[in-house]
């Protein structure tokens, strides 16, 4: 017990803040990109929709290390895009916090996109038609009619995206690396301390992750319960 207390007193909390910061920024990115993509996909014909949907969902079904491999290919300083970003904007993605955000965003994006799409598909198309005949702009219809109607689905999508981004490991490790205080997220911290045999520190971080995860799932359930006006009990 003294062990735990002394470790807690000297604990470097940076992985928690890095993870939360990464999760928050990735969630904001995914939120807007996901809504935009979901809206775009619903306007496509069936064939184009199947292909686009497949590409957008790919990061969810691929092993994260495969996504990490592609991200490295794209953002490596020796590659056109990575080199250009570094030279023009002094922006380094590989081995940096920007890499954490990009890796987490790419992996978590399909959760936002798919939830938003499912929620949009549930919106009565007559509401959209009504908005159009009333002269509302497409933008107003989207933000004032579609998004609020799809609210609960979008909200749970956002929270799941945050959860996924928070815990991202594989792609982050490959793209951003594990630099303490910079790109060292909770997941990477746990892996590292276990390799060093420090199970107590790992356990502390595991408890922190469990608490965060439980709160997230509880909030999702509460949100969907509020959306259901007539909940059924077995």
């Amino acid at each position, binding site marked *: 017990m003294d062990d735990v207390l002394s470790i807690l007193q000297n604990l470097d909390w940076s992985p928690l803040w890095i993870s939360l910061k990464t999760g928050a920024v990735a969630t904001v990115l995914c939120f807007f990109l996901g809504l935009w993509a979901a809206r775009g996909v619903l306007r496509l014909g069936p064939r184009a929709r199947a292909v686009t949907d497949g590409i957008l969902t790919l990061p969810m079904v691929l092993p994260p290390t495969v996504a990490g491999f592609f991200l490295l290919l794209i953002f490596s300083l020796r590659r056109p895009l990575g080199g250009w970003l570094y030279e023009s904007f002094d922006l380094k993605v590989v081995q940096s916090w920007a890499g954490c955000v990009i890796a987490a965003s790419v992996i978590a994006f399909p959760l936002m996109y798919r939830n938003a799409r499912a929620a949009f598909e549930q919106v009565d198309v007559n509401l959209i*038609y009504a908005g159009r005949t009333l002269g509302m702009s497409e933008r107003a219809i989207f933000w004032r009619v579609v998004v609020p109607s799809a609210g609960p689905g979008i909200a749970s999508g956002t929270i799941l995206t945050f959860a996924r981004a928070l815990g991202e490991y594989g792609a982050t490790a490959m793209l951003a690396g594990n630099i303490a205080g910079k790109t060292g997220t909770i997941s990477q911290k746990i892996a590292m301390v276990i390799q060093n045999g420090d199970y107590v520190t790992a356990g502390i971080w595991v408890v922190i992750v469990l608490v965060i995860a439980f709160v997230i799932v509880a909030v999702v359930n509460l949100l969907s319960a509020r959306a259901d006006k007539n909940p059924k009990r077995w």
Partner: protein
Amino acid sequence: MSLEVAIKKQLGRFTLNVSFSAGNEVLALLGSSGCGKSMTLRCIAGVERPDEGRIVADGRVLFDSARRINLPPQQRRVGLLFQNYALFPNMTVEQNIAAGLGRGGKGSPLVAEYLRRFRLEGLEQHLPRQLSGGQQQRVALARMLITQPALLMLDEPFSALDAHLRWELEQEVLSITRDFGGTTLLVSHNRDEVYRIADSIAVYSHGSIDRVGEKWALFRDPRTAVTARLTGCKNIAAARWTDHHLEVPEWGLSLSAPTPSRPADCVGLRAHYLQGVKQPGENVFRYEVVSSIEDTFSVILMIRPADAPQAQPIRWELSKTDFAALPPGRLVRIPPEALMPLAGEATALPH
């Protein structure tokens, strides 16, 4: 105000191919469900795109496939009342009504005026699901009319309402269309509703228009079996005319009737036009009752000639007073002028 529509649209195996025009009147699109009435309204509103054709309202071309014109619905100034009203569920009554006014809409005196006009005061902050069916319809009407549409289109406006509310709201819609004064299109499958509200009727059948015309003319002389059926004619049978004479084998009857001026394949007889009589005479026959059904204020008798036991029964509807006063002897007369010559198949259409 005038409206000209000529459109074609293919939907799977179903083809919509209609053309009609309307002036300052209420034109009803009458037909059974799935015959393309609502799709026509949606094409005019611009939320569906016809494959080809032309839609012109008041000289403004809304759609013209030949000239590649397809105005977005926002620019068409066409009001469409949806069957389920399509109120925005997340917005209050006030926000719903102001939705079409853009940024300056909320709290404008116009919104207050429409809230008053549609008797929605006190409900401003309610959500649509907290309203009754009648209140929902009034919100939808107010939301549509506040945008000053040049054309009104009502898609089955009473189908979502309880029977006792229909009458009240029908009166309301009737007065709105009178005040509006422009072209109103009304989609319905209820011939009584159409008869009360509309000036003209376009009868739909399987994606095309069977007949268009002024309502009295159409009810008096439907001309086709399809229109006769949709205007509520219950008795239709294949028939053969010879000089002032009519053979209806299905009914087991041979009747005198004026020779039709147009070719006709079958005859229609409205169920209210049969007459119980005391004396034999022209077009009078002795009947037997196959079955009788008591309705709220009327009696429906299914009858056939006593000497034709194989005949298809004829439907005869009469008030309970008339039923009680039927003379003994079971004689019924079919007035020659009640026999409507009709073109087309007599068999009931598959729905």
